[in-house]
C-alpha cells in the first residue's frame, strides 16, 4: 500500500530539482500536471489533489528548492490533510459500559466482516461483546453475522427480517446493560447515502440508541465517491471514526486519504485480509513516512 504514491512524490522531487534551483511556477507547470495525474491515478480525490498542488506552490514559491525542502513541505501538507482527532477505541469500555458502537456504510464495503474482526479485538482485550443484527433488510445478512457470532462464541441479538433496526439495537443495548456486557457492536444495512429515507432510518437509530462511537466503513477501492460517502454519512449522523476495508486489495491508498480529509475523523483500522486477525491499526506518522521516506 502507498508504494505507487511514494513513487509519484519521489519522481516529483527528482524532476523539480532537475529543472530549477529556484521555484518558478511557469517552468514547473508540466511537472505539476504530471503530479496531478499520478495522484488521481492513486485514487486521491480531485479536491485533495488541487489542495496538495496549491499548498505546494504556496509553500515553495520563490524559494531555493532542494529535495529536502520539498519533502518537508509535503510532510506538512500530508499532516494537514490527515489532521484528525485521535481515539483509543479499545479503551472505550473503561470509560463507558456498555460501549455502544454503530457501523454504517454503503452496500458491500465489508461492515459485517469488520464487526467480526473488531469483536475479536475486544475479546483479546478482555472485553465481553454482544452483536446486534440491525441489518434486517438484505437477504441472509442476519445469518452472515450469526456465523461470525458462533465462530467467535459471542451472543447475537436478532429479530426477523423486516423488523425495525432500531428495535434490534435497543434490545442489544438492554441485554448488555442487564448482563453487564462491555461492548455492543451494531451491524446496519448497507445504504446509498443519497437515499433520504434510509438515512432517516439511521438517524432514528442514532437518536434512540445513542451510540458512543459511530464508525463508517469505506472500501479502499472506492474512487472519488469515497469523499461523497464520508461527507454524507458525517452530515446525516456524525461519524467518529473510519475503518478502511479491503486494504490488502489496494496498492494505492487514496480512499483512505479522501475519507480522512473529508471528515477530519481518524482512520481507526485497515482491513487487510479474510481472517479475524486481519485488522491493522492505523498510525498517521507511519503512513506519512511510508509515503515520503
Amino acid at each position, binding site marked *: 500500500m502507498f508504494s505507487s504514491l511514494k513513487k509519484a512524490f519521489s519522481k516529483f522531487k527528482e524532476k523539480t530539482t532537475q529543472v530549477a534551483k529556484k521555484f518558478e511556477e511557469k517552468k514547473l507547470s508540466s511537472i505539476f500536471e504530471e503530479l496531478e495525474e499520478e495522484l488521481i491515478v492513486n485514487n486521491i480525490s*480531485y479536491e485533495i489533489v488541487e489542495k496538495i498542488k496549491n499548498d505546494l506552490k504556496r509553500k515553495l514559491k520563490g524559494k531555493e528548492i532542494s529535495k529536502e525542502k520539498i519533502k518537508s513541505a509535503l510532510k506538512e501538507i500530508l499532516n494537514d490533510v490527515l489532521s484528525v482527532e485521535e481515539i483509543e477505541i479499545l479503551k472505550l469500555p473503561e470509560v463507558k459500559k456498555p460501549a455502544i458502537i454503530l457501523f454504517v456504510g454503503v452496500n458491500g464495503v465489508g461492515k459485517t466482516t469488520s464487526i467480526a474482526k473488531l469483536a475479536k479485538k475486544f475479546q483479546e482485550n478482555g472485553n465481553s461483546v454482544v452483536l446486534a443484527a440491525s441489518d434486517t433488510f438484505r437477504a441472509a445478512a442476519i445469518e452472515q453475522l450469526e*456465523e461470525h457470532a458462533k465462530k467467535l462464541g459471542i451472543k447475537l441479538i436478532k429479530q426477523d427480517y423486516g423488523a425495525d433496526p432500531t428495535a434490534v439495537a435497543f434490545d442489544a443495548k438492554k441485554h448488555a446493560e442487564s448482563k453487564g456486557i462491555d461492548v455492543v457492536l451494531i451491524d446496519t444495512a448497507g445504504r*446509498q447515502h443519497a*437515499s433520504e429515507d434510509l438515512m432517516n432510518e439511521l438517524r432514528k437509530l442514532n437518536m434512540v440508541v445513542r451510540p458512543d462511537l459511530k464508525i463508517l466503513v469505506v472500501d479502499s477501492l*472506492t*474512487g472519488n465517491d469515497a469523499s461523497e460517502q464520508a461527507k454524507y454519512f458525517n452530515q446525516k449522523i456524525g461519524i467518529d471514526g473510519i475503518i478502511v476495508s479491503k486494504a490488502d486489495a489496494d496498492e494505492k491508498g487514496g480512499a483512505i486519504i479522501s475519507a480522512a480529509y473529508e471528515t477530519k475523523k481518524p482512520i481507526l483500522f485497515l482491513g487487510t485480509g479474510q481472517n479475524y486477525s486481519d485488522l491493522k491499526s492505523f498510525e498517521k506518522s507511519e503512513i506519512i513516512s511510508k509515503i515520503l521516506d
Partner: protein
Amino acid sequence: MVLDKLGDSLRNALKKITKEHIDKKAVISLSAEIKKALISGDVNVKLAKEIAQKIRDRALKEKPVKTLTAREHTVNIVYEELTNYLGKEHSSLELDKKPAKIMLCGLFGAGKTTTAGKLARYLKKKGLKIALVQTDTWRPAAYAQLQKLAKAVKVDFYGDESAKKPVEILKKSEKQFKKYDAVIIDTAGRDALNEELISEINDINKFLNPENRLLVISGDIGQSAEAQAKKFHETVNINGVIITKLDGTAKGGGALSACSATKARVKFIGVGEKLDAFEEFKPKNFVSQLLGMGDLETLLKKAEEAIDKKSAEKIGKKVLTGKGFNLNDLYEQISSMKKMGSFSQIMNLIPGLAGANIPKDALKSQEKNIDKWKFLMDSMTPEEKENPDIIKASRIKRIAAGAGRNENDVKELLKQYKQMNKMMKMMSGRSGQMKKLMKMMGKGGIPKLPGM
C-alpha cells in the same frame, strides 16, 4: 440520477460554446472540462485524456453542417465519441443455447449475489425458466442469501453448504441444468489479485464453459478498476459488464474503465436495493441524458409501464369534456406519475427541459406537495373522492386529522382541484374561452414551476 454530476459538468462545459463559429479557445476549454469531468467521475486517466483529445480534434477539424449551430455540432461530436466508447444499442445476453449459462464474477462486495437475484427476476419476466446456482463456499451465509433471493423471485436454487470446491457443487447439480433455459452461477468474490480466487474462477469456467461471463463491478470503484478488470479478463475472457450501486452519488467512471480494459459492453445497471431496481443499459439513451438532450424513448417506456391504459383513456375523456373529473382521477394520475420516478428524473428525459436549470429544491418541494395531496386523499372516503363538493367543515377537520396535516392543507387541495376542474371546463368550451385560459396563464393564475 446516474452520472448526474458528470452530466452537470458536461452540460456546463457545452454551454460555454455560444458563438456561431467554432471558437478554438472555447473548444479547448470544453475538452479540458470534459477531461476533468471524466476523471472526477473516476474514468481512467489515460482514457479520459484520449476521449477529450479526440473530441477536441474533431470539433476543430470537422466543418459543421450548415443547419447546425456550433454548439449543436460540438454536442454531436461529444455524443458520437461517447457512444463510440460505450456502444450504441443495448448489448443483450447470449441466450440461444439451452441452457444458456451465465457466470457472474467480480470483487467482494460488488453486489454479485444481489445481481444474480435481479438477473433471475429479469429473465424470468421474459418467460424463461431459470435456476440460480451458488458456488461461493467462502463468505458466511452466501448460500442462504442466494437461496432467499431464489425464493423471493420464485426460481429454483442449487448449492451445497458443505462443499469445499465450486466444481464439486457444479458436478452434482449439472445434470439438472438441462431443465432450464438459463442458469445463473454466482461465484465467490475477492480481490482479483488473489491467486486462490483466480484459480477457482478459472476452474468453474473450464468446467462449465459459460457463454456469458459477466463482470459485476461497483459504480463507486476508482482508478483500480482497470487492473482488477484486466485480471478477471485474462482469466475468463469477460464478455459483459454489470455496474451496481448507481443509485448513490457514484459516477460509474471506474466501471466504464473496466469496460474499456475488457472490451466488453455494459449490459445492465443496478439502481437500487430492491430486486426490480435493475435496468438494461442502453448507451444511446444514456449519453443523450448525460448531455441534456433528453430521452423520449425511455420516458415513453416509463409512462407505458406506469400508466394503466384503460384508466388513462377514461381520465383523458373527462379532461377533454370537462365533465366528471374527480379526486379519484387526480389520485390515479399522481400515483402513475410517482411510479415513473422523481420529478428531476422525469425532467431529464424531456428534450428541451433536460439540462434546463431548474433548482432541485423547487422540484423537491413540488414533489412534497404532491405527496401531501396523496396522504390527504388517503384519508378521504370513496364518496368524498367521487364527489368532493360534499367536503365541508367537519369533513375537512376529520380528513386533516386522519392524514396528520392541518385543515388549511385540505382546503388548499380542494382549491387546487376546483381550479383544475374550471380549467378543464374552459378548455372543452369554445375557442373564445381558450383565449381566456391563455390570458389566465399569462397572469400566472396557474401555478408554474419556478425557474422555467
